[in-house]
């Protein structure tokens, strides 16, 4: 196994287009959908439609869009309680997603899962994991399936910077390398784990350094630049599809909201937040699209409006859906094994 190199990628700001226009437009659409979805969840929370807690990802949209756009049918994903972005980027039906967060029977999980557990196996969306680190081993298993089935599929797992201090992370990194699994580790380094700044819990800011301990190829990328994320992740995905094993991509990004709805995020300064909002992934992409004359302001507004209307409608329908009322949830707990299994 050759020695991996961590390649530092500078936070990019506006850059030239390096991807086909339709890919850039697609990335913008995914990001805008995520933003619209999360903003709507935020409002819905304030309107009492969301119960318990919720973890939003505004500011981090470029990671989900850029990392997931290179995926194809048959690829698998696991993600975390902060997983709405991945689901929307992968094309989860918005109404069913809202319905789940609103606890309705039309939700992707029939209202049993909630905000922290959006899943849709038809899209390879295996699940959100509310226990830090728990999604990584599961993604390794999905990657094993891909390896057995030899169709060139891959698995991808998303996790935060804080999660790289827990045991399951380490065990999965090692296993992926030892078994040469087609597994992409996407670390969303948003500089905080809950209320703790990264440097209080980890010896350095460049999480990709972790990968070196497993001789795993890694990259650091501007996680607010969807184009850059797409390019870097694509390279790793292509290698994994050809049997080249796992890869680790650290995406530098930032969340605008608090950790969860109960967190006013007092642990960070207004300036820090403002500086990241300057580098907003959607703003950056708009600039790119316009400066390169790929889309006009009007065309962008049209996209925004369409997504906004679609989002509103999805949320509205979801909010009108019934709550589940089943007396027994035994079937949801256990599958009924068909007799033919034993035959």
């Amino acid at each position: 196994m050759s020695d991996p190199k961590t390649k530092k990628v500078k936070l990019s700001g506006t850059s030239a287009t390096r991807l086909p226009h339709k890919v850039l437009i697609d990335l913008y659409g995914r990001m805008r959908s995520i933003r619209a979805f999360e903003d709507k969840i935020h409002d819905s929370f304030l309107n009492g439609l969301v119960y318990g807690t919720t973890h939003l990802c505004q500011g981090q949209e470029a990671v989900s869009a850029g990392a997931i756009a290179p995926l194809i049918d048959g690829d698998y994903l696991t993600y975390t309680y902060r997983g709405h972005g991945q689901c929307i980027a992968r094309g989860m039906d918005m109404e069913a997603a809202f319905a789940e967060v609103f606890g309705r029977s039309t939700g992707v999980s029939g209202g049993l899962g909630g905000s922290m557990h959006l899943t849709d196996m038809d899209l390879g969306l295996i699940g959100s994991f509310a226990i830090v680190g728990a999604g990584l081993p599961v993604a390794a298993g999905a990657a094993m399936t891909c390896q057995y089935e030899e169709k060139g599929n891959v698995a991808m797992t998303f996790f935060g910077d804080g999660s790289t201090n827990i045991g399951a992370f380490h065990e999965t990194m090692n296993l992926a390398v030892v078994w040469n699994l087609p597994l992409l580790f996407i670390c969303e380094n948003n500089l905080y784990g809950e209320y703790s700044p990264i440097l209080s819990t980890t010896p350095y800011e460049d999480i990709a350094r972790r990968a070196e301990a497993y001789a795993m190829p890694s990259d650091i990328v501007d996680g607010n630049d969807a184009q850059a994320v797409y390019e870097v992740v694509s390279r790793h995905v292509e290698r994994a599809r050809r049997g080249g094993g796992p890869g680790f991509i650290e995406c530098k990004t930032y969340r605008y909201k608090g950790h969860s709805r109960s967190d006013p995020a007092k642990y960070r300064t207004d300036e820090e937040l403002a500086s990241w909002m300057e580098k907003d992934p959607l703003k950056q992409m708009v600039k790119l699209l316009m400066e390169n004359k790929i889309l006009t302001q009007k065309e962008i507004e049209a996209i925004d409006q369409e997504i906004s209307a679609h989002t509103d409608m999805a949320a509205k329908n979801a909010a009108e859906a019934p709550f589940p009322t089943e007396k027994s949830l035994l079937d949801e707990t256990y599958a009924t094994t068909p007799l033919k299994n034993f035959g």
Partner: protein
Amino acid sequence: MEITYREAIVAAQREALKNDDRVMVMGEDIGVSGGPFKTTVGLFEEFGGARVRDTPICEEAFVGAAMGMAVTGRRPIVELMFADFMGVCFDQIVNGIAKHRFMCGGKVMVPLVIRTMGGGGTRFGAQHSQTGETWVSQFPGLKVVCAADPSDAYNMLRWAIKEDNPVIVLEHKFLFTRTQDVDLDAPISADILTPAVLRQGNDVTIVATLAMVERALAAAETLAAKGINVEVINLRCLRPLNMEPILESVRKTNRLLCVEENHSTGGWGGEVAARTTSEAFDYLDAPPERLTLPDWPMPYSPELEDAAMPSADKVVETVVAMLT
């Protein structure tokens, strides 16, 4: 003094930090920010980051480290953010902390406290709603207590910190804002482990823990209006289990109902019912009954979650059924 359950937890820790420099507190986001559930508010400011320590997300490491501190003469208090997270450090708790003294032939002690918060009713879904009661109460070497109100929360934690054995203090997320008049200067004592008869009655003995206690008490009111007088016992300590007050009560009421926020199989109600049957068989006019969670994980959707939790209404119904 009238304090909340949450304030009770803070107060017990402050007292210990102040009086015993072997005591320290650690957990995720419990320092600067005062804890995700605000159960360490002000302690960082008062005692500093060395003694009120934010940890990385590594439950195995910091729970194991608590054991290492305890056997070397310190008295750590660990906050585990959710009781469900005992899963990621289960080995440390049940194979390490619980058994270490024994494996050393009783030559060392392991004085540490793990505080953790569990329970349903908060719409947190299946992985953030378990009480954890029956995860750990089966292991000799541990002591396991459940705080049902601010007085319990305060006095159990104070006792746990003084105790020379590892103690798991289970708190309930639903109770954080409950208030009660608590004597902050009461003596610290193991009496806080004794099951407490919170209401007297002759018809049925109801045993409950954590958030089920207030529901049992509410049911008792309703039942009283119907002329049924139940005795309500806050069980308090799952390990070691003190059956005497329960047996005494059942010898009077001749009927037992356990109300718990756990699944039936493996719940403490089975143990309490079995021991009551075994030790007070001739006093029982009816078989002991149990009101538990249904046999599925906790659903997120509000109505389903409420339906899953044992409620005061269900307690009333069950008691009425037991008497007819």
